[in-house]
């Protein structure tokens, strides 16, 4: 007869135990029965917050319901185990079941600790642990404006981010003098606080909550220093308490401050009962992370099958993305007193970077570290730390920003037995074997080794190892476009020009394979467009929805309409037309950052008539949807401004009209300022022009966005004709040689010789191609056509602009609500009363 194992708790660790035992117990020695208090089988609590960003409970499930059935695991959800009868070796449940066991596994996890503050029982106070908690928070947030999170640790900050995403003005209240006191030192804590506050979450340190005020519902928090914070709701995240109530009642040994005492075999004080995960107390430690829990589950599954295994404690290193910023720490976060150990610190409040290494007195061993703002070095550092690898002679190299040629731990230097994924105990050797056995992508590698499927922290390092190994195996990791073309964008550009190929079909048939994908299709579409300059809709199938519908798709599936307003100059009459059109179609209106007007919320079937009205009033497409010239921003310059030295507005309008519609590897933006005061922020553009007393200064390769970069001075005091000539050549050279989706800044930094090379080519014609560049640019300028005008005059093209091809019904899945007197996409599940169906 099979021996029966009961697992109390089907959380992440309880489930992992079942999975491990099932896969190892090939002789089918055991039968597993598991009880779970929650109404659903185990789900991925680590990624719980993604429930708010659209993942469903099903999506978060660790395994589908039928996994349990298929593998003979008897799962009882919604059933609390209420007591353990150790004498007779049976478990009693709330549903009245009495089930005998041979071995019992406690995997009861933990519950949030709620400090006994007066008033904490009021309505509007929540914890953050289960899907039900999140559902309750979401519902309550609908009628709230402000939220405070009690606790500035890992989970507290995660909860704060979630609250902010729900649209609440969010505060974090921490008792200690700094954030994440367990993982960060004082300076790192200050940096993190700055970053978080910059993102709009207010942090209050050194605050002990004395009382929670309000009638039945929360209205304010009162602190021991007599200050007060009015709030509508509170999320408590003040730590966890292991769920040891059952164990305690059954007379098992528990720790003074909670937790079921286990030894290195994970046995409790009863030799038939194990405890694993967050309920287990090992050498005075509760491990509140998933990786140690998984290690425990793995060890117990081995022990039960008679194999040798033990748990000797685990590493508490963590890396996470908090509120959009990287935070990581491992090992010792401060040099232990009297150890002679040294701290190497980079503290850059300007770039919001804090990096610290704790290094042994002889400089050879890494004892720990902290990274805030950029944790890209984490994977490599952790390897050095965990495997006791010798450090480079100048350890600071390990944490210098990558651009300065850091000597960070390369995938090659990692020994083969080093553990890469601690959640799933996968070593570098395991990964390399899997690659040798045919895993050809990160996805496959994850699927076949399970590495990276737990907390996800190891994925960047895993990716580096994958790339290095593929290279070693002679699989060329080239700059090929994608699996369908063995060429780079530049090579394809040359092929297309040289062969005169005009369509994607012909190109992929002759030079590629299969159907293509969303990498090569738009890249080729862009090359075809910037070579032959046909209206983009003739390449509809190559383009993203934005280009197929000549409009930008929005999160709810509607589109935006942005007519060109060259240089940001507009007459009252035209402005009135925009207003009238927006009013007629009930579109949301907003100014863009490029001095034009965005109208949002149009259904595909409305786009043609909206554009017809705009075109009739003299507007044309603004190409906001394309990888093309966007806007040339300008100030009023010498015509109005008392400081202006040149007419920046006229120049901006002329330049914008010159390059409008030109397709390029990525979007292009320009700017013109009338004097050195630079009111139009021209230096944050791909090309920026600033007036001087004598003419114009040209700057190139700047951008805003994720990695802002100031443009470099390219030429000084040039006249208008030279200026235009340089920009023509510059842009055309970029179009011809840049990689797909590469902005001018990245392109230039990759060019051998950088700015100097670019000046040589454009100013001194060092490659002898300037005539050609100018001619090609002139051809693009001469063949310009407004894509929207072209489209609405072509009945074939207009056929696509319908909600459905087989009926004239409107898409009734689109709903709006009113916010500040304008439409706004209804959030999912927003109640029917609140929504007004789109007309």
């Amino acid at each position: 007869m099979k021996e029966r194992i009961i697992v109390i708790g089907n959380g992440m660790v309880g489930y992992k135990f079942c999975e491990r035992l099932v896969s190892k117990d090939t002789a089918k020695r055991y039968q597993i029965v598991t009880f779970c208090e929650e109404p659903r089988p185990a789900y991925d609590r680590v990624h719980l917050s993604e429930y708010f960003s659209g993942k469903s409970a099903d999506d978060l499930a660790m395994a589908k319901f039928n996994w349990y059935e298929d593998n003979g695991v008897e799962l009882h959800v919604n059933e609390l185990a209420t007591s353990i009868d150790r004498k007779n070796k049976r478990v009693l449940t709330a549903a009245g079941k009495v089930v005998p066991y041979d071995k019992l596994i406690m995997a009861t996890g933990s519950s949030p600790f709620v400090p006994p503050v007066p008033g904490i029982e009021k309505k509007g106070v929540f914890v953050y642990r289960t899907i039900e908690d999140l559902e309750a928070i979401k519902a309550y947030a609908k009628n709230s404006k402000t939220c405070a999170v009690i606790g500035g640790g890992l989970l507290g900050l995660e909860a704060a981010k979630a609250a902010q995403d729900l649209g609440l003005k969010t505060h974090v209240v921490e008792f200690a003098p700094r954030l994440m006191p367990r993982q960060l030192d004082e300076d790192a804590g200050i940096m993190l606080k700055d970053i978080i506050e910059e993102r709009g979450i207010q942090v209050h340190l050194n605050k002990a909550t004395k009382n929670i005020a309000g009638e039945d519902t929360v209205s304010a928090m009162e602190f021991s220093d007599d200050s007060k914070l009015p709030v509508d709701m509170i999320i408590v995240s003040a730590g966890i308490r292991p769920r040891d109530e059952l164990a305690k009642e059954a007379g098992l040994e528990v720790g003074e401050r909670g937790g079921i005492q286990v030894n290195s075999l994970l046995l409790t004080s009863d030799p038939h009962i194990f405890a694993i995960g967050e309920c287990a107390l090992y050498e005075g430690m509760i491990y509140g992370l998933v990786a140690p829990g998984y290690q425990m589950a793995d060890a117990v599954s081995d022990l039960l099958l008679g194999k040798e295994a033990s748990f000797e404690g685990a590493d508490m290193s963590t890396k996470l993305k908090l509120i959009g910023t990287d935070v990581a720490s491992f090992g010792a976060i401060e040099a232990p007193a009297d150890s002679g150990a040294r701290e190497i610190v980079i503290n850059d409040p300007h770039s919001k970077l804090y990096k610290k290494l704790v290094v042994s007195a002889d400089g050879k061993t890494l004892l720990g570290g902290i990274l805030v703002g950029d944790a890209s070095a984490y994977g490599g550092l952790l390897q050095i730390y965990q495997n006791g690898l010798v450090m480079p002679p100048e350890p600071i190299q390990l944490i210098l920003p990558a651009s300065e040629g850091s000597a960070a731990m390369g995938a090659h230097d990692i020994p083969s037995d080093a553990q890469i994924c601690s959640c799933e105990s996968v070593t570098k050797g395991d990964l390399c074997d899997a690659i040798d056995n045919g895993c050809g992508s990160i996805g496959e590698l994850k699927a076949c080794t399970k590495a990276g499927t737990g907390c996800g922290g190891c994925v960047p390092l895993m990716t580096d190892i994958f790339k290095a190994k593929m290279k070693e195996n002679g699989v060329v990791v080239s700059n090929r476009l994608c699996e369908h073309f063995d060429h780079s964008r530049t090579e394809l550009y040359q092929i297309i020009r040289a062969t005169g190929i005009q369509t994607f079909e012909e190109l992929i048939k002759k030079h590629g394979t299969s159907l293509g994908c969303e990498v090569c299709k738009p890249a080729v579409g862009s090359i075809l467009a910037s070579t032959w300059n046909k209206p983009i809709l003739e390449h509809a199938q190559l383009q993203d929805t934005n280009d197929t519908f000549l409009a930008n798709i929005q999160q709810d599936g509607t589109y935006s309409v942005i007519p060109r307003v060259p240089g940001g100059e507009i007459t009252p009459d035209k402005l009135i037309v925009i207003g009238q059109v927006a009013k007629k179609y009930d579109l949301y209106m907003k100014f863009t950052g490029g001095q034009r007007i965005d109208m949002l919320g149009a259904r595909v079937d409305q786009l043609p008539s909206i554009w017809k009205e705009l075109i009739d009033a003299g507007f044309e497409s603004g190409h906001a949807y394309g990888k093309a010239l966007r806007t040339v921003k300008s100030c009023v310059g010498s015509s109005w401004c008392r400081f202006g030295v040149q007419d920046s507005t006229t120049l901006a309008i002329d330049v914008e009209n010159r390059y409008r519609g030109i397709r390029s590897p990525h979007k292009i933006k320009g700017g013109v300022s009338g004097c050195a005061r630079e009111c139009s922020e021209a230096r944050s553009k791909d090309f920026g022009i600033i007036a001087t007393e004598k003419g114009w200064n040209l700057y190139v390769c700047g951008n805003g966005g994720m990695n802002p970069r100031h443009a470099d001075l390219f030429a000084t005091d040039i006249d208008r004709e030279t200026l235009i000539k340089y920009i023509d050549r510059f842009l055309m050279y970029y179009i011809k040689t840049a990689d797909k989706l590469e902005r001018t800044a990245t392109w230039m930094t990759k060019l051998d010789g950088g700015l100097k090379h670019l000046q040589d080519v454009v100013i001194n014609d060092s490659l002898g191609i300037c005539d050609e560049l100018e001619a090609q640019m002139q051809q693009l300028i001469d063949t310009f056509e407004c894509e929207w005008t072209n489209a609405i005059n072509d009945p074939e093209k207009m056929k696509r602009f319908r909600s459905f091809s087989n009926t004239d019904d409107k898409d009734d899945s689109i709903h709006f609500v009113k916010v500040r007197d304008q439409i706004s996409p209804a959030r999912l599940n927003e109640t029917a009363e609140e929504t007004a169906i789109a007309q």
Partner: protein
Amino acid sequence: MITDTKWTSLGSIDNFPLHLGTCVKVGDTQIAVFHLPTEGKWYAVQNLNPINERMVLSRGMVGDENGVPYVACPLHKHHFALETGMCLNDPTYTIQTFPIKEEGGELIIAA
């Protein structure tokens, strides 16, 4: 169990351009139809992207991953296999697929 499949006409195949997705409505269901130069040629899947629950898949770009034809959601580029409906980036998601074929110049669907 054998049941009679109920086929609904979607009109002339000329209304479904090659390489592109087209949205149709059958009863109350929005369905994304794709016309590809592959052997199977016609594919029909739900128009709803299950990840953010918006009706957008018909407007995604089609392509193939190791020969498996897919549509990439236009919002965040998740790939859904057109044959099986499986999400290739995250197998916990699948979308519904519908039998679809050409008959006498018309496209018919079982939905």
